[in-house]
Structure formats: C-alpha cells, structure tokens
C-alpha cells in the first residue's frame, strides 16, 4: 500500500479491530478486578496479564506492519490542526499499546512478584526488585490506563465524526468491511 490507497490493508484493519476489542476488554477487566475481593479476582487477574502480553506482541507486529505498508493519506480537505491531532493521537495510542503491558510486567517485576500467565507460563523478571520503583510503575500503570481510556473515547468520537458528519472516507479507510463507497476514486 502507498499514500494513494484509500484503505488500510486487510491485515492492518484486522489487527486494528481485533486489538480494539482486546484493549477495551483489558481496560474493563483492569478496573473490574481491582474493585472486587470475590473469587473471580484471581481468574480476572490471570486473564489481564495474559491478554496484556498478547496485546504487547500484537502491537509490536502491528507497528512493523505499519512501517512496511504505511497508511492512507488523510483527506486534503482536512484542516491542518485536525490532521496534527489525528497524528498525535495515533502516536499516543501506539505508545500506550506497547507501554501499558510493559509497565504492567515491569511493575510486577519490581514488586518481586512472579509473573505467571494462563497455562502456568512464567515470564522472566524485567527489573530487579525495588519497592520505590514498584510504586512509581504502579501509579503510572493506573493513571495511564485512565488516560488510555480517555484517548480511546476521543478516538472513537473522532472516528464517528468522520463517518457520520464529515463523511470524508477516513472512517471507511479503517472500516472492518468495505462500505458502499469501496472502489470510488479518491476525492483528492
């Protein structure tokens, strides 16, 4: 793909939507598990760690795919500040997709916890135990999780804004299935 194409590649769209579901699930599991003392706390925590590591791997794959295939250009008619906001928010989303799982893993390592995933998979420690560092990473994991959710809401609102109001093909570029306008010539 190159800047002339109107849509992300199938692989990119598949990764985008698969990970969107996974990341939203992670955020809900995260706030759900830390607000319960019921037996489900343990399976939720295990799911959280496991899915989080899967997301880390998918995010790295996705970044590589992005370097190879690029992205469709935003519509020429889009105001420059809006384009800047779109680009910055995408950097932010990539940073959080990779940063959040690393923070989770590092936080447990610094807290001298074993990092055990579903099926008894044990990850090595990322950092030597350090209580102060544990606390810092924990606070970062929690606050960035809320920032991540806020950014996703903004991103969702922007996506729908493109789809319903601007109707400029930006939403279609990432839409999971081809819309009615698939194949129309780019307007720009």
């Amino acid at each position, binding site marked *: 793909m190159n800047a002339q194409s*109107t849509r992300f590649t199938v692989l990119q769209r598949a990764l985008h939507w698969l990970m969107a579901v996974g990341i939203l699930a992670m*955020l*809900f599991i995260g*706030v*759900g*598990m*830390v*607000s*319960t*003392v*019921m*037996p*489900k*706390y*343990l399976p939720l*925590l295990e799911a959280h760690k496991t899915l989080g590591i899967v997301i880390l791997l998918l995010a790295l794959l996705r970044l590589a795919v992005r370097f190879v295939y690029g992205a*469709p*250009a*935003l*519509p020429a*008619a889009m105001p420059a500040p809006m384009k800047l906001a779109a680009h910055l928010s995408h950097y932010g989303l990539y940073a959080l997709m990779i940063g959040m799982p690393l923070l989770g893993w590092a936080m447990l390592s610094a*807290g*001298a*916890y*074993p990092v*055990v995933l579903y099926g*008894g998979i*044990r990850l090595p420690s990322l950092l030597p*135990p*350090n*209580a*102060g560092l*544990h*606390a810092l990473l*924990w*606070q970062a994991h929690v606050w960035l999780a809320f920032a991540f*959710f806020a950014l996703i*809401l903004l991103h*969702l*609102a922007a996506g*729908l*804004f493109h789809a*319903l*109001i*601007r*109707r*400029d*093909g*930006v939403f*279609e*570029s990432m839409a999971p299935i081809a*819309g009615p*306008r*698939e194949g*129309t010539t*780019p*307007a*720009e």
Partner: protein
Amino acid sequence: MAQSPPPTSRAAIGSLVLIAGVVAAAAGAFAYTGGFLSPERLTPPKLVGALAPPGGPALGHRRNHAKGICFTGSFQSNGQGAALSKAQVFAKGDYPVVGRFNLGTPDPNAPDATVRVRGLGLQITAGGQVWRAAMIDPPFFPVATPDAFYALLEASHSKDPDAMKGFIAGHPEFATFAGWAGSAPFMASYAQDAFNSLNAFLFTDAAGATHAVRWSYRPQAQPEPLSPADFAKLGPNHLETEIAERVAGAPQRWTLVLTVADPGDPTADPSKAWPEGRRSVEAGTLVVDKVEDERDGPCRDINFDPTLLPDGIAVSDDPFPAARSAAYARSYNLRTAEWKDYPYQAPASPAAGSTVQP
C-alpha cells in the same frame, strides 16, 4: 479519499447527539465496572481501609500484621509430600526460604502481649517457582467468609456499644474463636508457635489426582506456655529480641504437616477445623538460620500473597485466598508508595541489631 455529500444540519445534530451518547455509554459502563457507581461493593480499598486503627494506618507499613521481623533459612523436603503434589518443592532436597515472623496488628509498635494472633509469612523457592504463604497460630479463623471479616472489622471499630453483640449474634462461628483467644496460652517464643494455613488448597499429584489440603508448620522447640500476665512481664518487644537471640544460638525448626480432607470436610470455610484423624503427611522441615531486622531485611518488600503458588498447588473453593490476594496487593501498593514514611533510620532492635549491617 471517498467523499459523500455533507449531512443536513438537522442530521448533523442528530449524529452529534448519537456520538455523545456512545461516548457517555462507554464511560458509564467503565465507571460501573470499576465500582465507582456502587459504593456498597466490597472493594480491596474498603477492606484494607477497615483494618486501620482509629488514628489511621501506620504509613509505609503492612496494613495488617505490621509488626514483624525477617528471617532466611531453608526448607528441607523429605520427598513425602510428592504423594500429594507434583510441585518441585516436595521433591527431596533443600530449598531456600525467606520469611517473616509477625503479630496480627495494624500497629508496628504494638506491645507483644496486646496481640493475640501471631503469623508467619513464608516464601520457598524451588525449581524457579515460588510458593508464598501467610499463616497464623490459631487453629481456625474467626469468621467464615471475607464479607464476615469486613463486618467484624467494622463492628470492632464501631462507636455503637452494641455493634460487637450484633456481630456475634449474626456470626456464631466467632464464639469458637473467642473461646480460643480467651483460653489459649501465650508461647514464650515464636519458635514454639504452630502456624496454620487455615485455608484449603488443591494439591495435584504426578498422576493428576487432586487433594484438598490444609497445612501446619509445627514447632520442634519445647513449648513454654505462659499466662497473659506472665507473658506481658517479658516486655513489649520480647518476641523479636528472643527469636533473634535464639536463632543466633542455633537454627530453629518446624515440621510441615499436610492434612488431607475427607470427602465432605468443609474446604470453603476456614472457621471450621477438620475433624481429627485425617490422613496427614510430614513433608519436611523448615529451618530458620538467620534473623534480620525488617527495616533492611529481605522480607520487607515481599507480599506474602497466599495465591502465589507453584505448579501442583492451586486455590480451592475457599473464598479467602482470592480476597486476601486482592487485599494484600492493595496493602503492598500503598506501603511501597509510602516508602518515604517508612522508618529506615529508626534504631534497630537491640538483639537483631547485631545481625544487621549498619
């Protein structure tokens, strides 16, 4: 890119309302899941907060079992435990141990004789996997469920003079514990206390069969049971001074006894001891050979979360380990975040001081 005609302004307003609605619904679902809209939900912050004494928690310290002292040593496994669990720790061999003797109080400076419950935090590392446990000396837990534990904490801190009466009426199991607390002697040394898992765990053996197990570390030292008054005469910090001196003289030992439930035994309720005569297995010996002050000892920054288990041991239908894991994580997060408040500079306790680097 594909373009289509812009919507009419009425349709645009409709779309904006729709977008706002989608965002609000997502934010609402998130807040609901996180319990922000359900103040009645028993959350880890609430449960841990309820442990705090009226003057507030001791910052930088464990929110419960705050007074304690570290040790290191080994677990000498005799191989017998392998009949119940395939965990590496039950294969014959010596495995390194980090632990902590402690008192069940949220006050790190509580005089020893004012605390009824004593605890043992333990980590055994075998085959690259850790087994963490936190055990206490009573033979059963005061209450049957985590919710009841919260109710007990609330009642005991309540200003209502009838709060405890009401709690006891609603939780008959508490009387059994109160009976123990009122009659059991105080041992003169941590080395003479038995420490019990109370919670049941599922052990899986090499053939894949599972067994519901509770365990105890039984002291090999001669017991010296004292009345509360005689124990109080030994001084407010007797236990830490004594164990440091005792271990400096000779390693101290406990036998690990695994007890297997019979079908129908209450595995989900730690307030009920299992009847006598259950199958039991002596799996090895805990040897404590060095005691160190908590403030720069190896146990301070460890969370002895009882759900951190090796392959071959898992949680059972007992609801406590999950609740404890959630609460201990909260306590650990808080106390590590408060590291500035932890008294690193306080003088070491006199006896343990000798084993501590300046």
